[in-house]
């Protein structure tokens, strides 16, 4: 069995990267892992589950974390204890000025002292920062990381905000100085950096960090200065994280220092830095806080559905980087949550780790004894019944989009959009998603247009929801369940659509006639209909919709060529 080393892990991951990314290649990854580990089937399941679980944790975005995770899981090593140490000399200081309050108010910092990079380690260090930026940092909007060669700088450092024209420095990998305004222009065409510009663009002040000699460390969240650039030979690293979310900034700093303090002369020791906030209060970072939770073993057993001894559960958790021991009455487990496990915020997170270490596929399945009587949602029940009889009446069911363009529900039907009560989408990527439909008719007409090669007549229907504004609802809008049908042929076929209405009313047990509970159609007007060929449908004392022959303009606007008649009603009055 090979040692679970950095090199080994890298090789396995490289070889199986595609399998990790594509879960359905599960079997091949299993094969690879079992070959290297020579595991039993159950243990293999656990390791496999673990690898995936590790992928979700921030600290395991890098190989250092994955290797350490697997080594702890296999009980090769004990989980390291991360310590913050105060330097013998002067502590590095970062002073935040009040100008940052309106743009990017938080900053944290730490130092990795006497670190030894190699090419691999250095690449991994850069890669981790990039992954964090994409992930927990929300594309640098919440947090941005800057890492610097401390030996090129002299503290204390100042984190402030200045007018872009007043910021001038030589940015990373450039040979001359630019003002912040110039940089924003240059980076507009930079494929990587252009995605971050919007975070500070158009703000009066830009965030910037200086050392005591006025050297620019970075202009977060865009770019670092070239002066303090780190290299493979850098021995002392100053790390700053600025952001709009204090909690996340602290987590990101913890992740970086816990992962890379391994390569310091004193492994897992992180040199503290002091950050002074505008109100004068000063804090020491990184936090590297260890928290203790006490969870009862029977709770874990009950939530997962297993029967393990408290000792075994403690062992499972310890292997998941949660150092645990049985205490008190022998049923309580004290769990230490390390700074690398920011995802653990509730006992249920601990329960999940126990279940993963146990192996999901090893859990005994059971059926809950929950006794319930099933009910259908009445509107859906009516819809289902009507769908079958619409098909039995010779109409074919369409399924069209609930989102469409303004044009579809207004201009093309001869209406003004303001007359539709439609809800409007604020951020559509294309015109197809401007509004929610207020009528099913456009969808059916577009379906016909896409199927003009089919033999005539085309008889289509749809029973689905439309959306309109309604201030009596909590969200200010509501759905209505509509039934729409169209007949498309060489003749308008009004009598066919009219006959379909009669059939629908027959099915709904609504008799013809004006008397109470009956239905009638009355001559009416409608922008979408040919003059004199439109009627309103009144049933059970209320207007439920219209039927008629479509206006030639409507037919043309939907790229159709034949006469067409249609019917659209709200079916909710018949519940």
């Amino acid at each position, binding site marked *: 069995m090979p040692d679970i080393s950095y090199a080994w892990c890298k090789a396995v991951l490289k070889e199986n990267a595609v399998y990790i990314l594509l879960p359905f290649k599960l079997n091949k990854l299993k094969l690879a892992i079992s070959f290297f580990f020579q595991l039993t089937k159950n243990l293999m399941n656990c390791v496999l589950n673990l690898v995936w679980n590790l992928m979700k944790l921030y600290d395991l975005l890098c190989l250092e974390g994955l290797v350490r995770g697997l080594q702890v899981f296999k009980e090769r090593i004990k989980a390291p204890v991360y310590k913050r140490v105060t330097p013998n000399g002067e502590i590095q200081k970062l002073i935040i000025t009040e100008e940052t309050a309106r743009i990017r108010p938080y900053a944290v910092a730490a130092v990795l002292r006497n670190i030894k990079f190699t090419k691999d380690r250095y690449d991994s260090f850069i890669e981790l920062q990039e992954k964090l930026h994409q992930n927990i940092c929300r594309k640098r909007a919440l947090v941005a990381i800057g890492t610097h060669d401390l030996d090129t700088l002299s503290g204390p450092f100042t984190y402030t905000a200045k007018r872009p024209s007043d910021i001038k420095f030589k940015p990373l990998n450039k040979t001359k100085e630019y003002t912040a305004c110039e940089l924003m222009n240059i980076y507009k065409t930079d494929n990587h950096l252009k995605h971050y510009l919007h975070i500070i663009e158009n703000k009066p002040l830009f965030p910037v960090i200086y050392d005591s000699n006025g050297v620019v460390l970075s202009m977060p969240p865009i770019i670092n200065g070239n002066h303090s650039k780190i290299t493979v030979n850098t021995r002392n690293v100053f790390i700053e994280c600025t952001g709009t979310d204090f909690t*996340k900034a602290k987590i990101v700093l913890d992740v970086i220092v816990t992962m890379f303090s391994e390569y310091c002369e004193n492994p897992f020791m992180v040199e503290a830095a002091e950050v002074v906030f505008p109100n004068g209060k000063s804090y020491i970072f990184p936090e590297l806080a260890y928290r203790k939770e006490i969870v009862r073993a029977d709770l874990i057993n009950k939530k997962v559905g297993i029967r393990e001894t408290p000792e075994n559960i403690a062992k499972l958790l310890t292997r998941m980087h949660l150092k645990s021991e049985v205490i008190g009455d022998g049923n309580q487990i004290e769990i230490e949550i390390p700074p690398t496990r920011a995802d653990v915020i509730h006992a249920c997170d601990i329960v*999940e780790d126990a279940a993963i270490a146990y192996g999901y596929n090893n859990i005994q399945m059971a059926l809950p004894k929950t006794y*319930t009587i099933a009910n259908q949602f009445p509107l859906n029940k009516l819809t289902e019944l009507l769908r079958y009889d619409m098909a039995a009446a010779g109409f074919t069911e369409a399924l069209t989009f609930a989102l469409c363009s303004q044009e579809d529900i207004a201009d093309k039907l001869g209406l003004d959009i303001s007359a539709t009560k439609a809800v409007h989408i604020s951020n559509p990527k294309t015109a197809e998603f401007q509004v929610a439909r207020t009528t099913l008719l456009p969808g059916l007409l577009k379906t016909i247009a896409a*199927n003009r090669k089919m033999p005539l007549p085309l008889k289509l229907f749809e029973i689905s929801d439309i959306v309109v504004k309604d201030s009596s609802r909590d969200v200010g809008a509501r759905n209505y369940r509509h039934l729409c049908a169209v007949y498309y042929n060489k003749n308008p076929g009004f009598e066919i659509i009219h006959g379909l209405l009669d059939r629908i009313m027959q099915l709904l047990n609504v008799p013809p006639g004006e008397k109470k509970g009956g239905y009638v159609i009355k001559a009416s007007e409608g922008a979408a209909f040919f003059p004199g060929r439109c009627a309103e449908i009144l049933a059970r004392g209320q207007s439920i919709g219209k039927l008629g022959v479509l206006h030639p303009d409507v037919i043309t606007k939907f790229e159709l060529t034949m006469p067409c008649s249609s019917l659209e009603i709200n079916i909710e009055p018949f519940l």
Partner: protein
Amino acid sequence: MADGPVAEVLLRQLATADGGLDSAELAAKLGVEHQAVVGAVKSLQALGEIIEAELRSTKRWELTAEGEEIAREGSHEARVFRSIPPEGLAQSELMRLPSGKVGFSKAMSNKWIRVDKSAADGPRVFRVVDSVEDEVQRRLQLVQGGQAEKLGEKERSELRKRKLLTEVTLKTYWVSKGSAFSTSISKQETELSPEMISSGSWRDRPFKPYNFLAHGVLPDSGHLHPLLKVRTQFRQIFLEMGFTEMPTDNFIESSFWNFDALFQPQQHPARDQHDTFFLRDPAEALQLPMDYVHRVKRTHSQGGYGSQGYKYNWKLEEARKNLLRTHTTSASARALYRLAQKPFTPAKYFSIDRVFRNETLDATHLAEFHQIEGVVADHGLTLGHLMGVLREFFTKLGITQLRFKPAYNPYTEPSMEVFSYHQGLRKWVEVGNSGIFRPEMLLPMGLPENVSVIAWGLSLERPTMIKYGINNIRELVGHKVNLQMVYDSPLCRLDAEPGPPRTQGTA
């Protein structure tokens, strides 16, 4: 009519013929069009075993219209030669003759004539030889006389190139007596009629046999949409398992019910403009259950109910933002909240309805799709129970091999993705996502502490596409649907069929 005069003659000729006869020869003998004999053969064939006919094709050479003219009048070059008097002819005049242009060049290359360009009134043409052999005419006359085989291959192909000859294929029948041969044929009835039934004449009449290889006439009918046929089956499965349908007829939802109530933090990527459709009008929810909202706010920003919380500044404006729901879990949250307002009774809920994502569209992703969701709320539910319910649910879909893998969901913990081995595709495919709702979601609603809620979800489109072998989702959902596919789609029997129809790719 099957017993036309030609058919009768054919049968009589066949009765005396030795072995059989050829349809073309018969046509020539009778002096009728060959097609008439072919018609007779076919109608006799339709009557059963009266005759046997074997299709033969023979090739032969025929003259084209121009070829026939040449066989009659001589080749163009010979006609040119003949039209030149001994004293010669002006070239311009020669060219005006019908055969002038073609005949002149050919006669020149045969060295039959010459041109004197120095003549006083323009070039003149003179004979060079006294007489010529019109070889072309002779050869064409040979073909006309049915002696094409006397010409060499090269000679025939030269004539064909000049478009004077064509090769035609003649399809003829070699007709011989069938096992039920008879010279007297009676007219066969095609269909049973009411008159035959009442008169009883059907007893004495022969009936024309049916061709059972032909297709029937499809009935005029309406058709249900395949995706919604699958929806019906999923509803049926949930109802069989005792699950009650949740109301989901509200596409518009507030961020509060869609995200905050599910303990999804306000900076979560799913709440980004790039992933979710937000509304411009109505932009904000008008009412929120404020008591509950405060408990949710506290849980997000400070923690509580045993949780550390996310520790960030939770904003009510963010929760009020209206959107098109991104999952039906918002409806599940509303149902669970309603459940929590009464003394607790166990519940099983399901829903199948549309959800909306502001995503990049491709062959398998649309901006809207249907989500299937199941929820069980009861005291003491375990991960093992979740897996047990999933096993029963998927067994009803005809899926028996399941595997579970850890996953990350903001509102479930533990979370598990469900995979099944697909026999048709021969690989493990993700069939759903599941988990136990977080206490931070349930306890602020007011549900009792020892109540667990297990839930799972999947899309309706994906199993439908696999089931019906559809690769492009636009052929299934939306107005670009292929109506022929809708017309032709079979019943949806989820547990009865092994896999997708074999396509060319997998065959």
